[in-house]
């Protein structure tokens, strides 16, 4: 399909042309957070740490679960990955509607908004990952060999998140209900993914459903690569990878094709 190929080439060229803007938008959001809040980047660390403390109390004292590695490490790794997706999507969902002025008045590729949302969360992700490294050192857990798979896991995770960010930003522009619906779904989705409990602990139909969730596969892949010192489980990870890498171009194309309707509909 040569038509589709040229369309993609244009998309990527345009994005490359405006790379400066993506950088500026991302640094704007980071800078603003640093200026407007007393703790700045510390929030990037504090959210997953506090969540880990809460879940550690619940799953170590109240209703203990068996995990292959110490529970705090297990939970922090999951929450870290989950927080990246959740916060990227939370920023992305209002990224177009919160910039009405720019969307209706000035032209540039609109993908910049959801992309910047993902990029900002990615910076937080990197900051918060430093704590994970510290914890791994403390517990003496982790192997160098399996780290080779980390880039692949990251690519799939980012692609999947970016695709959803594009779709959500666009959907919320046309239907403002999306933002509220999204908040509800996000909470539900976190517990439907094996973030704070091991997926093996769930059996039956529920277990099957949770395993079918791509976030379960992605989070589990991180744990395999970082904590268990093994390669990701092939089938679930390959399915998540196929989904993410297929969804991203589809979402991007859908976004681009409806872009010219944004100014009229916002």
């Amino acid at each position, binding site marked *: 399909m040569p038509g589709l190929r040229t369309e993609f080439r244009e998309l990527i060229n345009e994005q490359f042309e405006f790379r*400066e803007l993506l950088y500026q*938008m991302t640094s704007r959001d980071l*800078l603003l957070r640093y200026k407007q809040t007393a703790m700045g980047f510390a929030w990037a660390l504090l959210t997953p740490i506090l969540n880990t403390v809460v879940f550690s109390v619940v799953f170590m004292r109240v209703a203990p679960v068996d995990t292959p590695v110490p529970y705090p490490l297990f939970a922090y790794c999951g929450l870290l990955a989950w927080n990246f997706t959740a916060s990227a999507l939370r920023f992305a969902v209002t990224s177009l509607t919160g910039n009405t*002025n720019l969307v209706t*008045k*000035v*032209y540039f590729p609109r993908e910049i908004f959801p992309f910047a949302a993902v990029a900002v969360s990615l910076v937080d992700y990197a900051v918060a990952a430093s704590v994970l490294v510290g914890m791994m050192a403390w517990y003496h857990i982790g192997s160098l060999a399996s780290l080779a798979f980390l880039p692949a896991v990251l690519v799939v995770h980012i692609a999947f998140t970016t695709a959803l960010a594009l779709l959500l930003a666009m959907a919320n522009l046309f239907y*403002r209900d999306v933002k509220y619906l999204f908040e509800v779904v996000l909470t539900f989705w976190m517990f439907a993914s094996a973030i704070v409990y091991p997926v093996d602990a769930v059996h039956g139909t529920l277990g099957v459903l949770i395993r079918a969730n791509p976030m379960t596969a992605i989070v589990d892949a991180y744990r395999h690569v970082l904590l268990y010192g093994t390669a990701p489980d092939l089938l679930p990870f390959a399915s998540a990878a196929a989904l993410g890498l297929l969804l991203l171009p589809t979402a991007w194309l859908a976004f681009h094709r409806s872009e*010219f309707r944004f*100014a009229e509909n916002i």
Partner: protein
Amino acid sequence: MAGAMVVFDHVWKEFARGERHDSLRDLVPSLFRRVTGRREADAGARDAFWALQDVSFEVHAGEALGIIGRNGAGKSTILKLLTRILKPTRGTRRLSGRTGALIEVAAGFHPDLTGRENVYLQGAIMGMRRAEITAHFDEIVSFAGLEPFIDTPVKRYSSGMNARLGFSIAAHLDPDVLLIDEVLAVGDMAFQKKCQSRMKQFRAKGVAIVFVSHHLPAVARLCNHVLLLEGGRPLHLGTPGDVIAAYCRGTGASGCGEVAIAAALRANRRAGVDAFEIEPGERLTLDVTLQFHLDVERASVGIVVWDLARELYVYGASSDCIGIPVLHARRGESRQYTFSFDANLTRGLYALEVNVVDLARHRMVGLARRIRHFQVLEQVSYDGVANLYLTGREVSALSVSGPPLEALAR
């Protein structure tokens, strides 16, 4: 001539009128209706109107097209189509090279960021690279006159400072095509002058310009073509003088009262032309025909010169004050007059008004505003309205008797 930089080819643009589906609450019932085949209640959604109808123009390098028209005529729609924010419903539009837009020049500013940070952000929104912004940074700031405040958050700026900074960034773009919306009205007189000379520099450098404005003298000064829109339709495309005159006639030429007024304007050598382009100081003659639909005992005919751009009453005089006997006419009669005056005016666009006043009843019985127009062209542009023919020479080398300098110093 090499291909046009901007091509607008038979462009139509349709908009939906009224509220569209904004939430799922509206979507769900409408989907339901669609499924159940009940369409009648959906009629409101199809209420559309044409914001632009069959508009075509081209702008070549070094040319400037002005677009004028009343509010709602479709001017902003054209700009949004040119900036690619909107897509035409029918027809095509094409721009070559790098496009710069002086539209909403401060749209990307964030109040919590400093002027410096906003320059980089807004520059990137306009498509500039960081190196490019850094290279022009000092110029941008000094053009805006904001050196002392550049590290202050823009939320502490006045609206004028905001607009000046935004314009200044845009003014340092290096575009092939420049789209300008009503932005020249920012800042004080000095800043506006700077902006206007900047626009002229762009044009001289070979940039193709599209300029949308209500500020007619600015359009007349900058543009070599003007497009007049009305209700989304192109009404006139031609030289600034012709089109601006047509626009002014359309907006204010309505004669009213019980005296019908017709007038023709002549200059020394030329006659019968609609919109005049004259030299400053040229003598103009206005032939006026009055048709009475009432009886008047004592009346006078008044002539008023308006500066169209500044909405300024420049000069007014009437037949009785120049010694023409008062007018006495019966219903159905007509009268002819001829008036002459020296157009000692500066560069600009002027309109003539003719009125008839019943002196006995102190009442205006006939009025034709903007019945004729003329444009004063000159190479040098003086400030103000009246041309007082300033002359002078340097006399310091000659020994003339004047006040000694010490006296001046005191």
